[in-house]
């Protein structure tokens, strides 16, 4: 395969300029021309004039646009980094301009639920696996792009923007996508691993958010490191079982995107999911918390979705189920913890 030095002529696209999108755009801009897409006209103007996105600094050689056609025409490789709630809509808007030659590597950790027109999750009792889509599955559903990858791992935006050393996993069924991702992102400060189990890697990123909420809750109750160690290890077991049921492989969950990301998120007091858990433990209600947060905590949606998926499968996921009760059924967090302590686990590790 010929790898022409396309980096000089073809710019790389980043879709979305949230905190993570901005970091990715800056990292890519170290070696490549970058075009970013933002929906709002004023954000586009801000980037092009002041080189900041809602206050976050952006490299000077990054150009912004709010025209999907333009960014798709100019770039062959695009990084969608948008919230999972808006992901499907954005992909639909981009779909007419995307071609089979495009490569999409997304950095979104969430799930999208495909329900019949006019129904919401509150209306359904059960959901099938085919109705739950990871972001790569959304891309495959909504567009003609097949060469899809995802980027996941312990990548806290704040630390990356300070250029602290870190690593990520690029997962794709296509080696060429992994190689392209490595070529574009790798630097002295940033290591890039490859993995062919894209579903497993995506699920790692999604499911760890549940455990992150629990970690925040433990901290909010003033508990220490023993409790956190317990949580991370039991959380791991739960992730492996859930992830397997959804089509991921065990190997991915114990990799960088799985345990690596989970340890980072469970210790990060900046993470949104952690904050949700922390505040719950302080006695705030879900409604209160939601109104005060500007960006979504993916874990909340994930818990609800996974809980509904579990109905009727005969599977148990004690941490997820108890967090669901705390979030939606007014269970006291202390009671949930009590319940977990009494839960009859007896085998430490039974998935390897």
């Amino acid at each position, binding site marked *: 395969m010929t790898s022409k030095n396309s980096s000089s002529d073809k710019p790389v696209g980043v879709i979305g300029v949230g905190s993570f999108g901005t970091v990715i755009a800056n990292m890519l801009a170290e070696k490549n021309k970058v075009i970013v897409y933002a929906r709002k006209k004023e954000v586009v103007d801000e980037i092009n004039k002041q080189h900041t996105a809602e206050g976050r600094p952006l490299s000077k050689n990054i150009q912004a646009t709010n025209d999907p056609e333009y960014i798709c025409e100019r770039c062959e490789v695009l990084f969608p980094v948008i919230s999972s709630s808006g992901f499907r809509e954005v992909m639909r808007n981009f779909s*007419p301009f995307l*071609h*089979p030659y495009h490569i999409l590597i997304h950095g979104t950790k969430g799930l999208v639920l495909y329900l019949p027109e006019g129904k919401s999750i509150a209306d359904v009792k059960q959901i099938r696996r085919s109705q739950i889509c990871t972001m790569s599955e959304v891309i495959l559903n909504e567009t003609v792009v*097949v060469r899809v990858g995802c980027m996941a791992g312990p990548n806290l935006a704040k630390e990356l923007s300070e250029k602290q050393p870190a690593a990520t996993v690029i997962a794709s069924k*296509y080696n*060429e996508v992994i190689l392209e991702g490595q070529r574009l992102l790798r630097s002295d400060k940033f290591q890039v691993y490859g993995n062919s189990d894209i579903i497993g890697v995506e699920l790692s990123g999604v499911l760890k958010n549940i455990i992150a909420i629990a970690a925040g809750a433990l901290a909010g109750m003033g508990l220490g490191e023993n409790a956190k160690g317990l949580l991370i290890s039991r959380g791991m077991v739960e992730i492996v079982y859930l992830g397997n049921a959804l089509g991921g492989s065990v190997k991915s969950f114990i990799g960088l995107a799985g345990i690596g990301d989970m340890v980072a998120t469970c210790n990060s007091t900046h993470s949104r999911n952690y904050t949700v858990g922390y505040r719950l433990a302080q006695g705030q209600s879900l409604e209160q918390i939601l109104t005060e947060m500007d960006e979504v905590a993916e874990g909340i949606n994930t818990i609800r979705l996974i809980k509904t998926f579990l109905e009727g499968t005969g599977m148990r996921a004690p941490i997820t189920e108890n967090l669901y009760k705390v979030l939606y059924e007014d269970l006291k967090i202390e009671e949930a913890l009590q319940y977990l302590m009494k839960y009859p686990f007896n085998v430490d590790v039974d998935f390897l």
Partner: protein
Amino acid sequence: MTDEYIKREYDPILPKKDEWPVVKLSKSRKEFVQQVAKASKDRIVKITGDSVEILKEELETTLYREKLRMKQNPWVVDPDDEADFWKKVKSALVHLSAENNASESQQKAKYQEILERITDRYADEIAGNFKHSHYKLTRGIVTTGFSRLLNAARVKGIRSFFSKQYTLQDKIQIIGETDQLRDLASQGTIVMVPTHFSNLDSILIGWTISTLGLPPFIYGAGLNLFNIQIFAYFMNALGAYKVDRRKKNLPYLETLKTYSSEAIQFGCHSLFFPGGTRSRSGIIESRLKLGLLSTAIEAQRANYQKGIEGISGKIFIVPVTINYHFVLEAPGLIKDYLSLTGQERYYKESDEFSTSYKISKFLFKFFTKGSDISVSIGKAMDIMGNYVDEAGHSLDKYGRVIDCREYFLTNGVVTENHQREEEYTNKLGRRIVEEFHRINRVFSSHLVAFTAFQMIKKEHKKLDLFNLLRLPEEDIAIPYEDFKSTCQMVLDRIKELKAEGKVHMAPHLNQDMDTIIAHGLDNVGMYHAKRPLIRNADGAVITEDMSLLYYYHNRLDGYDLEKLFI
């Protein structure tokens, strides 16, 4: 796709036989075989990383396995000079490894020479022997002979034997996208992928192709079928090339793939049974053998590399399902399935199709008695599983025209990337399975078999499959009224699925339930010595053979209908 079948005359799309790709190919058979042998050699050299050591090892393994095959599993069709050929290969290999003073490049050349001898032999072995005169004769026999039998059976009276009231098209109903198939076949290259339940399929598909006015398709037929004279004749007449499942060595497999890929690039319409062998369980194929399928993708990429971008170089995948009330080999197949527990091994070909006499007997029964067959032609797709419009353009799910070539581009250039094409093959395989379920046509016999089996299963909830199948048949009797209402429930769900475009239904399912059940019971596995379903003296529904019932029930697997019984 409508449910009604269309009975009509189709003009041949290429009236002159000299224009038929398969005729052109057979005329230049010698050159083509050489081209395949050469391309296969290059391919294997590439796979072995151009290393002498690995190539040597592959050749030695091949030799070893071939010797073992000749000793343990000889067939009538095997050529006489086989032992001789491999003896020579052996002595060449021994000779070469004893030669120490040859330089590496000399050694390499010599090993590659041996390799090419092998691929040359394989390519010649695989290549078909299409003869137009045989083709015409076969077509003649099938159409006139069978329709005489058919009319003799259906039209009453002395002159019935010469009646033209019924033609084969009444017996074997062709439904679906026949016009699109004809359109595309006259412009691009078709790869037809049918489901595979019976050895009869090859002949049926051959007949369908000729009835639709299409030139013959080439296809890979199991070499074992050539053991039987009557089949060998039909196969050669229909443009078959030979696939020997005993040979699993690298040179053979690569030569086979190269043959298929080169033939598609040559413009030959091809036929693959993507399930590999006949479905042992009666379930519509869900896991496909992807080896040959990958050659369609490879050929498409090669055409783009050669700069052929229009429809003339485009490859269209057309799924086809063949729907039966009755599969002659069912008892043997299901037995295999149950005893093999899913593992593929060598199996003995000792089923009902083992002799020409038995087949003739069956064909006579088939045409003189009831039991219709239908062949559903699915919508054509590009090699990525996108539907195509009448001009052969690929469409995305919103109907936008997309350029299939772009799937192979890297930085604007068509690139060869095997890992990518492997994934594309997986994807195409999944799409074909989806389409199979969509174009599958439900018959009354499928409905009654499915319902009866599920009712028995529900009655004995605690038994696993094997114990369930071992239930004494005399203990099972389903009261007719229960059976009728349950059939109605299943049929209602099938109608819902049909409304969602997920399956098709034969028109006889639009009658009242008593008629449907009677029709179903009459037809399900009708020529088996032990019937899967009949009614006893009290009117209750009983089975004489649980395994067969399970087999026919499996036809409706994959639609989540069993959830109705929880």
